[in-house]
């Protein structure tokens, strides 16, 4: 495929230009019909096309020129001059007319020479004289002039002092029609005090419509004999639309992106993106370059936000007065670089209109801080690939991850991890796979925690009665997942926010989690709508949803209908024990409900633990078990009854040994220090971070602080352990202290870990108090 974007209309013949001009038809028609109709004997309408770089201004001007040149009707009375390439030397009006005179002469309308020396230093008089000779030559050939001036705003800027003369000539005489192109609309020379205030008819070049884009690509496909283009349009209409949005419908950027998309398969992740960015650089460099430094600054800071922001937020970033920033934003809006969105209330929000331009600014102009934020990269990937495409890309990345250079892999891995197009399991898998290759702690830190850890952290907050923080923690996960919905439902329920609980449970229910219907039921109970609540419970009972009978029983119990209550309780008991096994989703949902149930009624949790255990959910089970001494007894029974603990996705050997070790702790049995070392070392080598954290936590819970210190000091794996479980190390140091919060700072630990660590400490202490009677120590 010929690189279509390298291609410049300026270098084509008139016939070629006419043949290849397929979009912006309306704008073209509007001007050319006026040119065709108006004989230039009365008022002459002058035009300016306003649009960003790459929006098609020059192409339009070139097309008009071609029409004037080739239409026999027009060529008879008009002559077109297009000064798009040769503008560098124009800095006074006389330079412009001089250039026009030269062009006219080239087109066999010879213009008399005017000697500038006669005018001394009066270049204005010289400009006027030049104009009059041009006029004379045109008259002689019975022609009028169509003057096409790209970047007319720049010309105005440079001929500043001659603007009045320019306007005067256009008003006093009827020889010239100006058709300009400009990237700017509200520059000062178009303000009231300036001569060219409202002098032109402005035609804005907006984003190409879907149909125009299609038309253009179909044309290219045929014209360049490039069937892959047409195929792409037919196969990926969604992606085409994404690209249109990403590029704000600017033809040049779009072509750039599409061309690369077609050649995508042999390129790799971030490198590929870099290449796209490099290709866009000349367009964007120029767009940035024409802005004065202050505007550049505002634009850049705005791009670092990626999302739409209020003026206030931007003011803090650019450190300029709010009035100034507002004024500059207005200019950027006028230039169609920034878009103004309606925010809440009176405030407007601003963001870069062309998302790809924003991406380019971030990648090329951003510092390390900006580059580390990858929400823009996520947004880009989601737009660039649709959901299906992103999954394919995910699989590719997973497959290649082991051989990839970490530094190159991490931005893409991180961007993907935050994508809502992945499932929660895919997200967790990517995190765990990435942790296998990430050597340095810095890179690891930049990845989010696995969902399990996030949920655990949220539960820690919930235990600390900080339900809001718990909800916030869960909401840091972008992916849609029933576990997330269930947990949010449970937490909202605990906050007595029944409306939200209802919303979340309903979402989980829609995702196929039948047990969520019980959440819907209890939410309605909370709201006070008993009828609807009961209808849901009944429905759940009919469908055989576990626990539903129990809830029915509880409900009837609460309204003192003992006979019905008894009926449902017994139904529940029978069915429950009949339940054979549950699939993975069932188990996950169960565990969630258990958590919540536990908050309501600790003892009724007991039977479920059996089911969860035999269904292969040991870590979640045991991790929760220790909070109650009675439960511990129950757990010991499980252990003594030799219930096998199959592991689903852990390697059986290591996991089993680890569980056995923890069981010993539970039974108050001696544990072997050597065994602990070897289990931990193996877990670290296999990067089983979850397991490592779990084990250390259990040791601390059972007062094995000294052993934990030894583990961190181990010459073989101590450092790695520190990388994996830093908060637990700090917790071990402070767990026995009277005022951990106070001591934390005194010891100089990282402030950003403080909150998590203190939560952890209070959780361990709370668990200890439940597990061991007061004053009992080991």
């Amino acid at each position, binding site marked *: 495929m010929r690189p279509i974007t390298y291609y410049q209309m300026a270098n084509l013949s008139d016939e070629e230009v006419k*043949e290849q001009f*397929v979009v912006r038809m*309306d704008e073209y*028609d*509007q001007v050319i*019909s*006026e040119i065709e*109709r108006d004989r230039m*004997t*009365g*008022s*002459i*309408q*002058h035009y300016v096309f306003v649009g960003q770089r790459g929006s098609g201004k020059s192409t339009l001007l070139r097309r008009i020129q071609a029409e004037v040149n080739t239409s026999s009707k027009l060529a008879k009375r008009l002559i077109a001059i297009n000064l798009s390439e040769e503008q560098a030397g124009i800095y006074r009006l006389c330079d412009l007319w001089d250039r026009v005179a030269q062009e006219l002469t080239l087109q066999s309308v010879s213009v008399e020479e005017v000697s500038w020396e*006669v005018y001394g230093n009066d270049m*204005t008089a010289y400009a*006027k004289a030049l104009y009059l000779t041009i006029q004379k030559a045109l008259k002689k050939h019975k022609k009028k002039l169509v003057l096409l001036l790209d970047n007319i705003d720049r010309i105005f800027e440079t001929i500043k002092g*001659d603007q*009045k*003369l320019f*306007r*005067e000539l*256009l*008003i*006093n005489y009827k020889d010239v029609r100006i058709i300009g192109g400009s990237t700017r*609309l*509200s520059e000062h020379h*178009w*303000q*009231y*005090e300036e*001569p060219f*205030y*409202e*002098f*032109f*008819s*402005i*035609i*804005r070049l907006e984003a190409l419509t879907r149909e125009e884009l299609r038309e253009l690509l*179909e*044309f290219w496909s*045929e*014209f360049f004999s490039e069937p892959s283009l047409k195929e792409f349009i037919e196969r990926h209409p969604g992606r085409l639309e994404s690209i249109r949005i990403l590029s704000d419908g600017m033809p040049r950027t779009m072509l750039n992106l599409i061309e690369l998309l077609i050649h995508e398969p042999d390129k790799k992740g971030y490198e590929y993106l870099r290449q796209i960015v490099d290709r866009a650089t000349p367009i964007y460099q120029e767009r940035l370059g024409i802005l004065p430094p202050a505007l550049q600054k505002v634009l850049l800071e705005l791009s670092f936000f990626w999302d739409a922001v209020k003026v206030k937020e931007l003011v803090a970033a650019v450190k300029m007065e709010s009035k100034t920033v507002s004024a500059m934003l*207005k200019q950027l809006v*006028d230039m169609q670089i920034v878009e103004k969105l309606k925010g809440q209330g*009176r405030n407007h929000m601003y963001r870069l209109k062309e998302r790809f331009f924003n991406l380019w600014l971030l990648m090329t102009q951003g510092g390390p801080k900006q580059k580390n934020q990858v929400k823009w990269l996520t947004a880009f990937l989601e737009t660039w690939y649709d959901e299906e495409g992103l999954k394919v890309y995910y699989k590719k990345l997973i497959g290649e991850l082991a051989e990839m250079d970490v530094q190159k892999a991490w931005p893409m891995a991180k961007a993907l991890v935050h994508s809502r197009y992945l499932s929660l399991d895919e997200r967790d898998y990517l995190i765990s796979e990435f942790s296998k290759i990430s050597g340095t702690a810095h890179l690891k830190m930049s990845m989010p925690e696995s969902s399990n850890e996030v949920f655990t952290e949220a539960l820690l907050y919930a235990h600390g009665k900080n339900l809001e923080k718990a909800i916030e923690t869960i909401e840091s996960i972008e992916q849609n997942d029933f576990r997330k919905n269930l947990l949010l439902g449970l937490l909202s329920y605990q906050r007595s926010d029944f409306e939200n609980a209802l919303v979340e449970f309903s979402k989980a229910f829609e995702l196929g989690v039948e047990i969520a219907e019980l959440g819907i039921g209890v939410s309605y109970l909370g709201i006070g709508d008993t009828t609807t609540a009961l209808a849901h419970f009944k429905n759940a009972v009919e469908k055989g949803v576990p626990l539903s009978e129990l809830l029915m029983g509880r409900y009837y119990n609460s309204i003192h209908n003992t006979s019905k209550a008894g009926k449902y309780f017994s139904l529940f008991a029978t069915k429950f024990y009949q339940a054979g096994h549950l699939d993975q989703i069932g188990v996950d949902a169960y565990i969630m409900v258990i958590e919540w149930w536990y908050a309501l009624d600790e003892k009724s949790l007991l039977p479920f633990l059996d089911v969860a255990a035999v269904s292969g959910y040991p870590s979640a089970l045991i991790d929760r078990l220790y909070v109650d001494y009675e439960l511990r007894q129950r757990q010991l029974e499980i252990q003594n009854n030799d219930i096998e603990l199959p592991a689903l996705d852990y390697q059986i050997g290591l996991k089993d040994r680890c569980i056995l070790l923890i069981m010993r702790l539970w039974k108050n049995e001696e544990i072997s220090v050597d065994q602990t070392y070897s289990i931990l070392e193996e877990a670290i080598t296999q990067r089983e971070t979850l397991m490592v954290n779990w084990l250390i936590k259990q040791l601390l819970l059972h007062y094995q602080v000294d052993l934990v210190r030894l583990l961190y000091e181990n010459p073989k794996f101590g450092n790695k352990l520190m990388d994996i479980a830093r908060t637990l190390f700090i917790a071990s140091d402070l767990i026995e202290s009277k005022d951990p919060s106070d001591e934390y700072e005194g010891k100089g630990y990282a402030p950003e870990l403080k909150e998590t660590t203190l939560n952890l400490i209070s959780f361990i202490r709370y668990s200890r108090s439940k597990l061991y009677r007061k004053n009992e120590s080991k």
Partner: protein
Amino acid sequence: MILLCYHYSNEFVVKMRWVSPHTITGSPAENEKYLRREYINEEFWEYVGAGKHILFTAPRRIGKSSVMKDLEKTCPDGVLAIYEDIESDKNQHEFFKRLFELLVERLGKKGKLKRLAGWLKSKSIGEVSPDGRVKFIEKQRDYKSELLELIKEMGSEQLKVVMLLDEFPDVLQSILDNDGKKAAVDTLHTLREIRHTSEFKNFTLVFAGSIGLEHVVAKVDGRLKLINDLEPIQIDQLDPEEAKDLIHQLLEGASMTISEEVMDYMLEKINYLLPYFVQLMLDKTNRVLRKKRQTELTEEDVDTAFELVVKEGRNFGDWEKRLTDYLSKMDAEFCIGMLTRYAHDPEYLLQKALNYSVKVKPDTHYKELLDDVLVKDGYLAREGQKYRFQSPFLREWWKVRYPAIGIDD
């Protein structure tokens, strides 16, 4: 309407050939793009006949240049009317040189040169060629006195010359800036002398400009005595019937059609019926329709076009500047405050305006400022006890310029 076939990429696409209305935005309107208001022309020629010299007053975009160009074309027999935009003249010399050469050239076209040829030659100003063109001899000369002589010289002709000088205040400002006050005063004196000397009675001067001539003269002289003999002709907005006539005229042969109801709606929306706004709205509605390939204009399309105009962010900075330039500080503050309130709240009560004036304490009575300044100068229109913005475009601009922050009355 004509149907045409465009041919590209091997497909035949039938498209309607769209004919746009004859709108013009920017350049002065002429011919079919201009709506002549006979009463302006009549008044003008009446004044000229009575030996008056004229000053057109009106802000930019009201159509002064269009009116003057039309007057040039429609002058009665025995009159030579010369319209010229002279804004680029930088000093007194250039100004008088232009007037002189312009006059000679136009007289030539009128066939009056033969009589002047001897005079021109004797003063070695230029040679008259057989086809009536003048070849000027480039040389330093005092164009001011040459001009006066020339006017005297043609005094015996049965020909009245009317010079319509567009953007004259700009030139006066340049003379003030480049040659100094003395030259500016001298220029004004010379022009006044032309107007008041019987020898020059066949010569009429007409001035116009987008910046107020009074304003510049005040800077030059401190008094307005030097121009107080000029007869002002005010050019007002169109009345609705005229606006409709203009629309009908512009729509001649166009694809777009407008029903009477929608036209009323559009005029109501434009509100301040400057020919320019009418042209602009017609231009934009045409674009809206053309894109939709729909010929009949609806109220919805009018709204879309209005949004387009507002979006282009016209600059009404001068409306604000005029207040601060011509009014005392407190009066200006009051007026700006009033406009801000009416912009954001069309239901703003007069009672509140009184309260606001008690707070701001303008130097002039608040009612006088409302009626004699804001209404008279076209900012607001009065309806009973209420005021509203004349131009919705100005109102939109004002709302952005002055957000509704700190309005607590």
